[in-house]
């Protein structure tokens, strides 16, 4: 057997690690800023670019795609070369992958604060960036598949399967969810509307968590945990079951994000059932990880790498148990729209992703610099500060979420809402928000300790850019003893990739087909009409300012909600909503029935200074809406784009749209003048926003055909 000499590319791994650390700090700092704004609203420095609605997506995108994304690439590029005993397929593709990804992050960091957003969670980036993401992702895929094809190891280890599944699924999710109709270079409308859009978005959103934050990291766990523990994975058979059942089940569970919404009931139930089933593969994976340490628990006491990994895997187990529990309709009724969900995702984000990344870095840096960790005690300090940070982050939010939800639902003896004013329920939990920010600060402090330690470590060694290795070449068509069809499958990576695709598409299709069916099944409400041109502009402003980050537009059929907000939301009311704006969090009250609830002047003063209208409000002021004017030159293309994707504006309407816009704006300006002697130019952005807010949820009130409901 002839040994071939080659080298592993460590330089690309190093660059991805540097990007991971930089964007980790940036993303966490942005998150901390957003957290502080929730109890100290003026912490947006009075700038429109740093308001909560704009930096919340910046935080989520930075953490998911920049911090976790770069770490994923670092881990994949390191482990894949070694598991396949070959250098990456193409150094050029590796570097295109690296720089392309950083450019995308840069584009996100510029566009999101500018308010250029689609408003769909974790898919906020506008269409040109979406295309760039797709291209770079394909580059990554080609590089990966190419590496697999030129491998020197006949079988693909389970980690590689997870990487393949990640590549395939994220590509499908991203492309399907990003169907949008461009209006201009940085503005588009989602191809789907209302209920359809919601289902596609949460099919994406849920599986972005599954296939961007989970499967690649399970692959990393299956590689780095055995390496760090210096013993093979507990059960390889279990890992096979873990892989196939996880990727097969995960994709079905998206509708659990839409329980009690206008989504058809059966789809909600399907989401619930598959979410519960997810416990099995998730816990199978967690146990497989923890049991890998069988007989090596003494080393967990000494080795910070193992400490981080044990907490990471435990956090994975906790959040994958909590997730299915939150998918139960009765639990979801309490938890949805509250801080409980924020706590839940941060157990996953800070615990699972963060700690696995830290463990990986503490293991990789000494390896790649041919040295030992500079300070084990500093790493241990990081571990404890970080763990405390997670606890201080999550516990207050659990308390906050449950407290607030119970307050929302509390009725007094007379049968009225006990806390009629939403703000009371916000003020109540502000101390928890302060504690959460302290938890976040602790966690971030730990990261700085790590950076110092890792830089010192690198300083004591010398970087091995190309690590020499040798392995026998893979013989063509060697007749190995056949041991079953899966072993054959693992020798055929392309076939394997196709089967993975099929496994995820089955779930996707069964979930999506009814989305298309829904359109014809949704009971049409004849009084629901498309938005007027001025309202469209207002809606775009609502999207730009990220109002959806804190306000839902979905009144669930509970007595506590219909009492507070009004008639529950119907699927037919959203047929012209491109994109849907149901939201997922109620830091402020639901807005679906806010139309015609207050006079125009109330909104005028409230947007200018929320605190003066509602004392104690944590909503930031929006003074720029009063200075800027709407871009009327866009109206025609907005109307045309929406007509193309199915909104029934008459042919030629775009030519008269601005006349109607002027008329409606003048009416509102006149009303403001009459109500409280307010002087404002009709073109001011606030006028458009008021037009939209006053329209919200009013269509069904036009006709007296509505029936009273009793859920």
């Amino acid at each position, binding site marked *: 057997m002839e040994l071939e000499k080659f080298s*592993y590319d460590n330089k690309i791994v190093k660059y991805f690690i540097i990007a991971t650390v930089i964007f980790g700090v940036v993303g966490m700092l942005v998150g901390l800023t957003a957290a502080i704004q929730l109890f100290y609203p003026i912490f947006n420095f009075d700038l429109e670019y740093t308001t909560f609605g704009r930096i919340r997506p910046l935080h989520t995108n930075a953490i998911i795609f920049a911090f976790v994304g770069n770490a994923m690439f670092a881990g994949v590029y390191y*482990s894949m070369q*070694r*598991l396949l*005993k070959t250098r990456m397929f193409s150094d050029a593709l590796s570097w295109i992958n690296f720089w392309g990804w950083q450019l995308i992050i840069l584009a996100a960091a510029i566009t999101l604060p500018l308010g250029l957003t689609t408003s769909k969670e974790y898919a906020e980036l506008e269409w040109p960036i979406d295309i760039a993401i797709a291209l770079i992702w394909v580059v990554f895929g080609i590089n990966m598949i190419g590496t697999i094809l030129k491998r*020197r*190891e006949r*079988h693909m*280890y*389970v*980690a590689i399967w997870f990487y393949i599944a990640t590549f395939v699924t994220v590509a499908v999710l991203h492309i399907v969810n990003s169907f949008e109709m461009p209006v201009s270079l940085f503005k588009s409308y989602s191809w789907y509307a209302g209920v359809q859009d919601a289902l596609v978005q949460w099919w994406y959103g849920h599986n972005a968590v599954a296939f961007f934050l989970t499967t690649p990291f399970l692959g990393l766990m*299956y*590689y780095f945990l*055995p*390496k760090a523990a*210096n013993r*093979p*994975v507990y059960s*390889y*058979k279990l890992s*096979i*079951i873990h892989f*196939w*059942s996880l990727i*097969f*089940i995960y994709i*079905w569970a998206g509708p659990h994000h839409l329980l009690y919404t206008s989504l058809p009931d*059966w789809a909600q139930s*399907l989401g619930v*059932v*598959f979410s519960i*089933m997810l416990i099995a593969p998730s816990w199978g994976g967690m146990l497989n990880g923890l049991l890998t340490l069988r007989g090596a628990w003494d080393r967990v006491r000494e080795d910070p790498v193992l400490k981080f990994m044990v907490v990471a895997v435990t956090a994975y187990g906790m959040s994958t148990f909590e997730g299915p529990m939150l998918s139960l309709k009765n639990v979801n009724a309490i938890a949805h729209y509250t801080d409980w969900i924020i706590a839940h995702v941060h157990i996953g984000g800070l615990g699972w992703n963060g700690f696995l990344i830290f463990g990986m870095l503490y293991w990789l840096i*000494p*390896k790649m610099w*041919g*040295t*030992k960790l500079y300070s084990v005690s500093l790493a241990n300090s990081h571990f404890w500060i970080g763990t405390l940070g997670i606890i201080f982050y999550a516990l207050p939010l659990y308390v906050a979420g449950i407290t607030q939800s119970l307050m929302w639902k509390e009725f007094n003896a007379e049968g009225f809402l006990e806390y009629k004013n939403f703000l009371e329920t916000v003020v109540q939990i502000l101390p928890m928000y302060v504690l959460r920010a302290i938890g976040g600060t602790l966690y971030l402090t730990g990261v700085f300790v790590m950076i110092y330690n890792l830089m010192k470590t690198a300083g004591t060694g010398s970087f*091995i850019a190309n*690590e*020499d*290795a*040798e*392995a026998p070449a893979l013989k063509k068509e060697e007749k190995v*003893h056949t*041991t*079953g*069809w*899966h*072993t054959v499958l693992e020798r055929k990576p392309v076939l394997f990739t196709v089967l993975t695709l099929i*496994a995820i598409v*089955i*779930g996707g299709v*069964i979930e999506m*087909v*009814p989305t*298309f*069916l829904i*359109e*014809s*099944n949704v009971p049409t409400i004849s009084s629901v009409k498309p938005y007027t041109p001025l309202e469209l502009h207002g809606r775009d402003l609502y999207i730009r300012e990220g109002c959806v980050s804190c306000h839902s537009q979905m009144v669930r059929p509970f007595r506590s909600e219909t009492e507070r907000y009004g008639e529950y939301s119907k699927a037919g009311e959203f047929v012209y909503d491109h994109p849907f704006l149901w939201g997922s969090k109620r830091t402020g009250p639901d807005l679906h029935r806010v139309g015609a609830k207050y006079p125009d002047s109330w909104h005028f003063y409230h947007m200018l200074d929320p605190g003066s209208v509602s004392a104690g409000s944590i909503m930031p002021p929006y003074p720029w809406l009063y200075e800027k004017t709407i871009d009327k030159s866009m109206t025609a293309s907005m109307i045309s784009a929406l007509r193309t994707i199915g909104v029934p504006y008459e042919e030629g309407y775009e030519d008269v749209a601005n006349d109607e816009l002027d008329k409606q704006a003048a009416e509102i300006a006149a009303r403001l003048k009459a109500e409280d002697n307010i002087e404002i130019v009709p073109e001011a952005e606030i006028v458009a926003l008021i037009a939209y807010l006053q329209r919200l949820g009013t269509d069904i009130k036009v006709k007296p055909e509505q029936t009273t409901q009793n859920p």
Partner: protein
Amino acid sequence: MFKYYFEQIHNVEIWPIISLSIFMIFFLCLLLWVFTTDKKYIEKMEQLPMDGGELSNSNQKSHE
């Protein structure tokens, strides 16, 4: 677009049953296969991450 084809499907209630059946069949096949896999193959795969083929094991105290 696709909705025109799917409008033909009247009994949408059957979807969940189909979903569950597909899953059960898939899962049973998976179990069947895993428990009939050759032990030698499993052992080989378990050891795969342990040997990366690296030559430079400078300061590693590992006993791989």
